[in-house]
């Protein structure tokens, strides 16, 4: 059964956090915990969501939450799942929230190991396309041409890793990509993943106003537009089959999408050196 906004848990499980105004990642965590409910155990590596959620002595999480070493998100999830199972507790869901760097670069081997073992965990990667917590450094999921503090001049020269294909190749039980611009789709996928026993992976696009260079109120708009213009796809992988959940409705507007964001702006010096003709 599909869950709508009205059926969500009315309590807030991620509240009073210190994320920047208009943070996409915090919306992804908040909604995921509302779907999973109070029996979810959150696991967070170093990253934005652990930096804004755990400010000693404050705790923005209402359910159980752990900070892990950067590379060990999936390993700690495995341990918590095994420990709780050992104690005879079975009505819980271990959920991990790792950023794009903690998933695609640093935590990749731990995730691969967890998929290999077939642990019953839900891994959510909130993808803000750079290491935003430490000040916008390029990660493996930074798209081509996006400027970061480590690729300041021409922007990233590498394309984004296809994380869904990587986890699918590892033999994951369920993998899906989502966007915070389409929360109904995101909620449905989390609900579906929570009902599957096995390793689940959800990759959610979570724009960052500070790192991407747009106004704080445009977060959801940009996340929606990314899907509409085809810069991000909503896909599902299950039982060895791929499914596209939404066709890009206006792929011709890709340029508009990129022009809205400060990170794709081309430096004047670079334009002159390369006789760049565009605006």
């Amino acid at each position, binding site marked *: 059964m599909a869950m709508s906004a009205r059926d969500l848990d009315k309590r807030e499980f991620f509240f009073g956090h210190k994320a920047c105004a208009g943070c996409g990642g915090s919306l992804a965590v908040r909604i995921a915990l509302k779907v999973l409910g109070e029996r979810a155990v959150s696991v967070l590596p170093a990253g934005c969501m652990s930096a804004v959620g755990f400010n000693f002595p404050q705790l923005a999480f209402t359910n159980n939450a752990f900070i892990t070493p950067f590379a060990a998100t999936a390993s700690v999830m495995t341990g918590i799942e095994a420990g709780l199972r050992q104690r005879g507790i079975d009505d819980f869901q271990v959920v991990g929230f790792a950023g794009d760097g903690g998933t695609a670069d640093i935590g990749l081997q731990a995730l691969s190991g967890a998929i290999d073992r077939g642990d019953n965990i839900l891994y959510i990667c909130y993808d803000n396309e750079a290491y935003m917590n430490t000040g916008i450094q390029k990660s493996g999921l930074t798209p081509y041409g996006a400027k970061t503090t480590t690729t300041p001049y021409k922007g990233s020269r590498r394309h984004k890793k296809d994380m869904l294909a990587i986890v699918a190749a590892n033999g994951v039980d369920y993998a899906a990509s989502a966007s915070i611009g389409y929360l109904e789709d995101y909620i449905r996928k989390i609900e579906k993943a929570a009902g599957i026993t096995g390793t689940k992976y959800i990759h959610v696009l979570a724009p960052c106003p500070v790192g991407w260079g747009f106004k704080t109120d445009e*977060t959801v708009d940009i996340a929606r537009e990314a899907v509409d213009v085809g810069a991000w796809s909503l896909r599902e992988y299950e039982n060895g089959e791929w499914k596209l959940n939404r066709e890009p409705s206006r792929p011709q507007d890709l340029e508009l999408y990129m022009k809205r964001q400060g990170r794709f702006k081309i430096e004047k010096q670079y334009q002159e050196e390369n006789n760049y003709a565009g605006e």
Partner: protein
Amino acid sequence: MPLKSLPNKAPELTAFEGGYLVSPNGGWRSVRPVINMNLCVHCGQCYLYCPDGTISPELCLDYNFCKGCGICAKMCKRGAITMQKEADYA
């Protein structure tokens, strides 16, 4: 101005008893969202898309934790939420 319904009780759903200590974030804000209940159709989009969860399903706004990002005003198809200068409320 006659209002359809004006929820005046502070949101209770956002704070748990014996829960956790969080200091207010309200001071971060330079603009605040104000809901016009005459235009509101209770679609719940502002509640759903608020990154901080400061709008309750009954549309009570928790001004202690709202950071004034403006997503709710943008999400509101009816234009019932306006962002007003915080200085006017000081």
